[in-house]
């Protein structure tokens, strides 16, 4: 057993140091009025920061946008991902090429493709396609409010890249399911639609659940990427970016911490639900 703990040590230390400790600090600060603008150190204020937040209409707007963004991108990614996986499930000529094409958006480093994507959709300088994109941007912003186009572009980017990951991931999932189970389903029902819902989806449930969760976590990272890239030009407030704004620009670390932590319980609840699908309790194992 000593060996086991020894082997677990590097991963655990990394995660504790780089995640758990900062998280703990964040939790502590969220109960204080800490700010570099103050002369004094952090002062304990209890739930004050949280109380403020809950009373703030802007916060609730951010929550709505955040949840909406997460839900919409996840649904779209899942739908596209499932479609990709099913398209690739059976052998056909040129499958490798199509597979590579579908793998590409994820394999292409998001750190740079997000930049390229954003510039493409909002060209910073005159290029051949700038006028067209400009018109599009003003139309969308005009219809949905300032910053809508930028926000939309992040959403599209996240879906584009995420559907690639989920498609490949589910393809692996389909390969992991014994083919007899699908053949069996072929005997059960002639309707492809019914087969899909009654057999394919339940069989892939653990992989779908895992995919949903991973997709949720990347949704926020992408958003933050663009937010930083555009120096806050994404006007639509989202919980993560709003917190960043408060902390860096406003120097209000206390409220910022409280705000950013609001995401965690939400994700934790989703994870707890999903664990039931992809990590069933021990009794299944011999």
């Amino acid at each position: 057993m000593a060996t086991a703990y020894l082997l677990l040590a590097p991963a655990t230390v990394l995660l504790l140091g780089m995640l758990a400790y900062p998280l703990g600090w964040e939790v502590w600060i969220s109960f204080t009025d800490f700010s570099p603008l103050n002369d004094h150190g952090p002062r304990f204020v209890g739930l004050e920061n949280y109380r403020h937040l809950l009373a703030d209409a802007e916060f609730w707007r951010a929550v709505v946008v955040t949840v909406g963004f997460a839900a919409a991108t996840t649904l779209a990614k899942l739908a596209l991902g499932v479609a990709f996986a099913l398209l690739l499930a059976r052998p056909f000529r040129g499958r490798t090429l199509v597979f590579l094409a579908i793998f590409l958006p994820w394999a292409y480093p998001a750190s740079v493709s997000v930049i390229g994507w954003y510039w493409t959709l909002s060209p910073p300088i005159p290029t051949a396609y700038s006028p067209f994109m400009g018109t599009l941007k003003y139309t969308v912003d005009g219809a949905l409010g300032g910053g809508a186009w930028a926000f939309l572009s992040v959403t599209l980017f996240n879906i584009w890249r995420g559907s690639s990951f989920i498609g490949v991931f589910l393809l692996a999932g389909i390969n992991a399911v014994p083919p007899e189970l699908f053949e069996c389903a072929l005997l059960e029902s002639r309707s492809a639609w019914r087969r899909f819902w009654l057999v394919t989806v339940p069989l892939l449930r653990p992989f779908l659940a895992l995919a949903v969760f991973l997709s949720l976590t990347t949704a926020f990272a992408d958003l933050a990427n663009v937010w930083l890239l555009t120096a806050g030009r994404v006007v639509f407030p989202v919980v993560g970016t709003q917190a960043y704004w408060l902390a860096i620009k406003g120097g209000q670390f206390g409220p910022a911490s409280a705000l950013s932590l609001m995401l965690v319980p939400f994700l934790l609840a989703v994870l707890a639900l999903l664990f039931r699908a992809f990590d069933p309790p021990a009794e299944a194992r011999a």
Partner: protein
Amino acid sequence: MNPRPWWRRAGHAGLLLVATVYCVFPIYFMFVQSLKTAQEDVFGNPFIVTNPTLENFEELFERKGQPRNFVGRALRRDYPFFVWLENTIVIFGGSVAITLAAGVAAAYALGRLQPPGFRWWRRAIFATYVVPHTILFVPLYQVIIRLGLDDNPVVLLLVYPTMALPFCVWILSAYFQNLPREIEESALVEGASRAAAFYRIVLPMSRPVLIAAGIFALGTIASDFMIASVFLLSEHNQTIPAGLATMEVALDELLAVAGINLMAIPVVLLCAVFARGYVRGLTAAMIEGA
């Protein structure tokens, strides 16, 4: 089964085409721009390139100190692209290696040695994904300063692994858990020590899953530019993504796009070479497991 009717096959092919275009077009578009001269960029057809040139790529590699042209009255800054490239290779390679080493060790402990409560341990590691890195900048910065790693690329070697580790531990431990115990035991009986049984038998036969974990780690790490650009301040410490983000887009758009492609090409090639292994490894980890 009956051969499928032509219209169904045509439909399938059509869907494949749509999917392919959807996935590839944005990348194609960026690639095309990077091959353009400034003139064609402004006046040409955005979808094709008529006079492909590598001058944007070449320009990236021009040494510091060499004169660069003016655009209007603005002097175009030059960028230490070589240094960025070096940093990027070291940091990406190192992070993937650290992720795999720590991940394999932890996964072997959880999947095979199964200390008390290993299930919860495994879940806890995975659950760290609920904490978006984006909300941790301020405290993370304090940790880094305390470690004396301010503006030091080593920081990324510590932070990046934590982004990929949970998933890697998850699939690797599922795989180790399902690996027949007898294979290792057989090696022990045959004359191997525990360590030898691990690196001569278990590790080589886990290759597909290791590839899957490695590719996932690379993809995850390569997707970050925020952490890099927040923690690496001096120009000579930056990675390509962080560096590109500092470019004057208005002046050097084509240069930046070329940089994007230069950064992406090796990563994409690596992923493409291992793509099949990636799927195979994920599948291997998921069979009975997950």
